[in-house]
């Protein structure tokens, strides 16, 4: 355990665990959390012992979205754009080479959905409510949601959710491919932990190459993707 203000960071054996920790604000994502999250992700990336990462939330919600008291107050668009890429916490999460597991419960709204969608394996407690209400605030998602949602759920379902901002429950999120497992609330963290243990049994490069082949392959045509897979499998064989 280390002294972050807005998250808990823990490492047991080879599994890192980041838990969003502003329970009084339903883990609303604020600037301090962005900075803490970014530091913790740097710690994960630099730690060769880490073989899997779990992301979850403390209290009654995974994450109820961005803290609107803090965001949207940049002095200018130029500053907002610079800050977005200066501390690219979403890129950091997206580029981790170890498997990442999101374990969500309660409210998973806006940035909460986006954090989840940047993870590889997503588990929801039965009680979870999801929503992307940005257009009702005059915004669109800004942590990759407009890209990750259609890539996971298809263009039409993504437009449905983004244009109406409607809320959905865990079962519908499962049907739309936003999560791949639903468990009772009291089994959520155990399930995530068991999955993390399971993926950490494999040689680190194997999981890294599988993740890379599937993710990078999405941006390639089939032949290029097959070549990438072949190249990575041979690298794994040499390791």
């Amino acid at each position: 355990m280390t002294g972050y203000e807005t998250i808990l960071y823990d490492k047991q054996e080879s599994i890192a665990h980041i838990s969003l920790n502003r329970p009084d604000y339903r883990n609303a994502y604020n600037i301090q959390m962005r900075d803490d999250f970014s530091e913790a992700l740097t710690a994960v990336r630099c730690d060769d012992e880490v073989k899997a990462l779990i992301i979850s939330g403390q209290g009654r919600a995974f994450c109820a979205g961005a803290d609107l008291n803090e965001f949207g107050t940049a002095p200018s668009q130029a500053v907002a754009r610079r800050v977005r890429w200066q501390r690219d916490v979403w890129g950091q999460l997206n580029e981790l080479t170890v498997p990442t597991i999101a374990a969500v419960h309660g409210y998973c709204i806006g940035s909460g959905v986006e954090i989840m969608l940047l993870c590889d394996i997503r588990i929801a407690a039965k009680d979870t409510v999801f929503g992307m209400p940005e257009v009702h605030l005059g915004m669109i998602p800004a942590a990759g949601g407009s890209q990750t949602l259609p890539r996971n759920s298809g263009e039409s379902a993504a437009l449905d959710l983004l244009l109406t901002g409607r809320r959905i429950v865990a079962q519908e999120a499962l049907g739309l491919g936003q999560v791949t497992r639903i468990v009772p609330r009291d089994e959520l963290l155990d399930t995530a932990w068991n999955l993390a243990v399971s993926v950490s049994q494999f040689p680190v490069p194997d999981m890294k190459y599988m993740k890379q082949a599937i993710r990078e392959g999405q941006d390639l045509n089939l032949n290029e993707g097959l070549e990438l897979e072949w190249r990575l499998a041979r690298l794994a064989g040499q390791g």
Partner: protein
Amino acid sequence: MKEFATGYSRISLWYESIGDWKAATISLTRPDSRNCIDETMAEEIREACRRLNEDEECRLVTVTGTGDFFSAGRTRVDGGEGSPAERMERLKVADSLASLLMPVLIVLNGDALGHGLELALAGDLRICSEAAHLALWEPGQSAVLWDGGTQRLPRLVGTAWALDMALTGRNLNGTEALRIGLVNRVFSTSELETAARDLAEQVLAAAPIAARYAKEAVKKGMDLSLDQGLRLEADLSVILLSTDDRSEGLASFKERRQPRFTGM
């Protein structure tokens, strides 16, 4: 109050106010010919789309059919003047619908077959009557698709279902179409009109520029690599910071009230 645009014979184009917003509807109006697309109807759809894209006030477009069919396809290409390629060009409609900048709601009041389904694929959200059937083949036409079906369908439902429908002419009912993601919701025939209205109201509750940008981010983003898509999203979201509606969205959230968007 519906305000009809004049000058159309194969379609109706009308405007109405939903809440504070202006919404448009294109209805295919050849019920005696099962709303089949002919050259005149195609030209009218393209013209209506051009007109709607120039209309800064229009926030939402609904496309539906009059009578029992959405559209059972098109008239034969082998009649009429000019070469086959020229006649095909004159029958194309899907790209013009896909070029609309505002959200486009497709209300499948009845069967959408062949070219009719290709038109429906070019919209954003599709809702369907449970009595409707959807298929890529239409009676009396070649199986060859040329109004976007081979590209838009697999992008919506995946390769497996697209090939099944393209190669076998497989006909799906509303429930099956819902399961594979070809439509977003299914309603009984009697509920469809109310459901369409409800959905239109839901979409119109969004800030207008944000809704357009969300559409652009998703649709353009799907043609880009993830990295480039993330860049597009970031740029669009930064632009939105300058809008009045962004300030109003934040203010309404803090004051726990409904936002009053202006589209500025």
